[in-house]
Structures are given as C-alpha cells and as structure tokens.
C-alpha cells in the first residue's frame, strides 16, 4: 500500500487527471473486503478490483478478476461508464 509520497512521484511521472489515494491503514480495503494478505513485506495489498459508481453513489458495474494478472481493459471500464449516460 503506497504512501502519499510514492503516489506523488507517480503523478510527477504520469500527468493523471484523477487522484491516487493512499489507504495506508487499509481501512477502505477492509470496507470493500479486498484485503490480500501475505503479498507484500509491509502488509496487505489490494485484491485488484474496479468499480463504476453512479451519480447516486450506487455500484453499477464491478470487476474483481479471477487472477491478478488479468485486469479489465480500459475499454470495458469506459463502456460501463458510457452505459450509465453522461451528464
């Protein structure tokens, strides 16, 4: 789980249009049941997961993947966003 300083370095290299959040205490990992223990010497990391959340805060699409090698493609995520309509 990367600290704020590591995320700052990433944003320096990649000008991203979205924030990278640091869940140092793994509170959000636990709230979303995505804790993957024993994968990193400094504690749990995330089971890879992607959620598309609508304007009312409701999950409308998600991908939890069966293998950490296989992540949804950006096209799949974008299609889920577009399916909700734009405003």
């Amino acid at each position, binding site marked *: 789980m990367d600290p704020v300083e590591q*995320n700052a*370095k990433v944003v320096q290299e990649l000008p991203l249009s979205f924030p990278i959040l640091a869940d140092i205490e793994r509170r959000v990992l636990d709230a979303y*049941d995505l804790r993957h*223990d024993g994968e990193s010497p400094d504690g749990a990391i995330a089971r890879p*997961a*992607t*959620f598309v959340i609508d304007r009312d*805060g409701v999950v409308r699409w998600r991908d939890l993947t069966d293998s*950490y090698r296989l992540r949804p493609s950006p096209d799949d*995520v974008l299609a889920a966003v577009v399916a909700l309509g734009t405003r």
Partner: protein
Amino acid sequence: MPTRAPRNWPAIAGVVFGLGGVLGYFALVLTHDPRLRGLIHTPVLNLALVVVGLLLSVLGAIQANQRTRGGRVSAPALALLNVALSGFLGWHLFVASYRLPPAAHAPAVGAVAPDFELRDERGVPVRLSSFRGRTVVLLFYRGFW
C-alpha cells in the same frame, strides 16, 4: 590427447529458449504497453518458446545419455534447470495469480459504495461522497512496483 566431446547444441538451445520464454514474459509485463495486453494475458509466444525449449532439452538429455564418453552430466542438468524455469512460469500464470481472497463481501452491483475519506497524492483529503452527482471509477491496484 583426448578430444573434447562435441557440444550438445540441443541442450544449450533448450535452456536459451526456456530463458527467453520465461524472462521474455516478465519483460513484456514490465513494458506496461497496452498494445501488448493480449500477448500478456495469453502469452502464446512465451509458452511456445518454453515448449520448444523443453523439447530441445529432452533431445539434449537423450543425446547425452547415448554418449559413450564425456558430456553426460551437463545436458540432463540443463534440462532439469529448464523444467524448473518453465514450471515456475506455469505456476505463476496458472496457479499463483489465481490465489486471491474471496472478496465475498465486496460491494455488489446495486449496493451503495461504502463511503471513505483518504489523502490524495498531494496529501489533500478526498471523500468518495463528494463525487455525488458524477460518475466515479474506483480502482484498487496493488501498488507501485
């Protein structure tokens, strides 16, 4: 003066193919190139290299075993190394990467996403519910490698 046994080329090529397949796979992953996505998800090229390498290793080991003098040890040893290398790649691709926690209580489609507040890369607190009225993509990743 005894002449050296001729080089066992299949044994050497086998390990070269095996190394190429295994190291090549991780090199592909590290490119982070979206165009290579298919080749990383289903690494047919790397698996083909590994299979050819294993066949060559077996051939090399058989040739070594048929020798009447010298060079009977290194080819089987190289073949064993190649089996270990290929086994590691297979284990990573088809076993280890599927060992994930069940996530049975992850927010389902139709559920309200649990709210939270975390600091962004500038240290500024960001709250999920502050995005109400906008569509949000929330992505959990495994950290910077």
